[in-house]
């Protein structure tokens, strides 16, 4: 999949994960599900049913309105893209640059003291400007080693070097049970969360019908602190 340039890409959905490692396939599965749904909408938009004929076999005049305009809210946003990646560490930089808005889907490990169970979905903002989940969750870490560089470290570097980083980053994360067993099975609750996360992601990608907004995270998906 071609990455779009800064001028082309308004919003990117980035599914991060590793399909070999049990629950860590989550981000990739969600991205694929969103792709599948978007393709489905696209096909439906092209095959939209003709309006029935009216009096004397003529179609009502409003039927002559351009079909594309009427159905545009169903089609994928033209400047959105969906990307799957297994990038880790600093290589995440390649995946985040060039989009003005970024939605990341990934597995999370949260401290054991918080009541989290596998399959729980957390949605929160990240980045220099908006950090609604609480400062500590969104600051770059002391990146102890390349294998520990995370999304937030990379965002911080991009921001401090004035690279074309997204101005808004939202994370859709699922609590995972096992991300270290090669060829392991996904936890059933994590697998079940794929559909829900795809729904959330899709809502963020497409502008709401008839309102012409820019697709901010709808209020009904409450942003929970991790």
């Amino acid at each position, binding site marked *: 999949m071609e990455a779009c340039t800064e001028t082309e890409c308004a919003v990117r959905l980035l599914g*991060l*994960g*590793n*399909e*070999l*490692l049990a629950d*860590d396939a989550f981000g990739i599965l969600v991205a694929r599900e969103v792709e599948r749904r978007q393709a489905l909408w696209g096909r439906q938009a092209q095959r939209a049913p003709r309006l029935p004929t009216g009096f004397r076999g003529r179609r009502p005049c409003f039927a002559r309105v351009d079909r594309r305009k009427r159905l545009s809210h169903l089609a994928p946003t033209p400047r959105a893209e969906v990307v799957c*990646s*297994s*990038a*880790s*560490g*600093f*290589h995440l*930089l*390649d995946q985040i640059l060039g989009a003005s808005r970024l939605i990341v889907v*990934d*597995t*999370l*490990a*949260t*401290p*054991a*003291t918080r009541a989290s169970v596998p399959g729980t979905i957390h949605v929160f903002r990240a980045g220099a400007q908006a950090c609604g989940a609480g400062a*500590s*969750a*969104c*600051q*770059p*870490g*002391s*990146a*102890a*080693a*390349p*294998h*520990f*560089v*995370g*999304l*937030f*470290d990379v965002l*911080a*570097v991009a921001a*401090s*070097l*004035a*690279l074309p980083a997204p101005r808004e980053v939202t994370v859709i994360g699922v609590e995972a049970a*096992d*991300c*270290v*067993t*090669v*060829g*392991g099975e996904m936890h059933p609750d994590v697998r079940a969360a794929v559909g829900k996360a795809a729904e959330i992601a899709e809502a963020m990608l497409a502008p709401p019908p008839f309102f012409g907004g820019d697709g901010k995270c709808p209020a009904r998906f409450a942003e929970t602190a*991790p």
Partner: protein
Amino acid sequence: MATQTAVLAKRTITIDPITRLEGHGRIEIFLDDAGRVERAFFQVPELRGFEKFVQGRQAEDMPQITSRICGVCPMAHHMASTKALDGLYQTPPPPAARKIRELVYHTFMTEDHALHFYFLGGPDFVVGPQAPAAERNILGVIARVGKETAGRVIAMRRKLRELVAIAAGKAIHPVFGVPGGVAKALNAEQAGQFRTVAEEAVEFARFSLGIFDKVVLSNSAYVDLICSDAFTHKTYYMGMVDDRNRVAFYDGALRVVTPDGRECARFRPEQYADYIQEHAEPWTYMKFCHLKTPGWNGLVDGPESGIYSVAPLARLNASEGMATPLAQEAYQRYFATLGGKPVHHTLANHWARLIEMLYAAERMRELAADPEIADPTVRTIPTHAPREGIGVVEAPRGTLIHHYQSDQRGLITKATLIVATQHNAGRIALSVEKAARSLISGPVVDEGVLNMVEMAFRAYDPCLGCATHALPGSIPLAVRVRGRDGGVVATLRRDADGSVHRD
């Protein structure tokens, strides 16, 4: 989980099954009667299930499968795996293919070392170990070296990765390694692109050594830190060398030197099992690699103990020079400054890494200028039935071994991976123990322990399987202190978000 029994200084301690804190490194500290640290073990959650997962798979898929295990260093696994396939099918690659592989590999090493120094190992030096924790991170480094330099690192990195993508198919998961060669030849124009970027990379490597000079070596506090006893261990060292015992990354012999720098073993990588074995301690999940001679003598350093280490520090110790002129100059200066060979200071890894980066860039330049690299013959089709193959490369963090056995159809029957962290496991444990000893007396565990351990840890950069994509912060670590009877007397846990908890 069954209870496990440990024999510790003639006492038997029964350890109840412990719930592993997933994603946390774990330190177990055993106190003696007087409340002093008797033993400390560092345990890292490992990738599980690899050897089972690959059984029955096509051997030719292994370079793609193994490169996916780690999201940080896929190229190293891809290359070791490809070489193992050469052995499995008894088909060495033609000269042009070997050169392409070497060129791509040195491009990767240049990039990886640059990244590690500036953004990862860098914080300890460039910002300073006394700096507040909030500054001792990537942003602190950028503030110290300046945005322009940091921007140069990012730009350099992008160019190097674009080159890798040209030759290897993709930067993130290379696809060009096949048994007996590579999948695609390079044309003269592409070789020219490599040459251009290589020139820049050589300049950048020299510039980086200059920064190290200016910021670190000219500051006596840093030099004291590097040479301090807390971060010094006298172990054996292993690294790959060429036929003149100069540091090699792609192919060569494995050479081992004693703690006083004498060669004690030199062997073809295929013979590794005659020289290295794993030792299992009954009370820990982790196995320690050690030399068969002198054998396992516990978690101690010195010539009687078979503990050895790998990575830049070890490679420079185990060699007699660098194969390119500028790197050789830097090599000589390094040993002259640090008091001769071998160097036992773990933190010197960061300096050694820069010297290796310079070598990788110079070698990249040499290979790109070699006319044979544009030769179209880049593959020898295997004709022998596959059986067994061993592929070894020097990954950025140390020796990487892939060992496969297959049936006649080329389906894997057995696969073994030995990664740098396993070679270094013993020495990492020594570092942890030293940190624990110097900072713990009695059941009180200090947060300073975590910081000291982290500094040594950074130099080794162990791989936790890259899967946790954890919420940001430090290494998740759990420290558990046990009294004389093995019962837990104190625990200290730092989670991925940096919060510290005493339980």
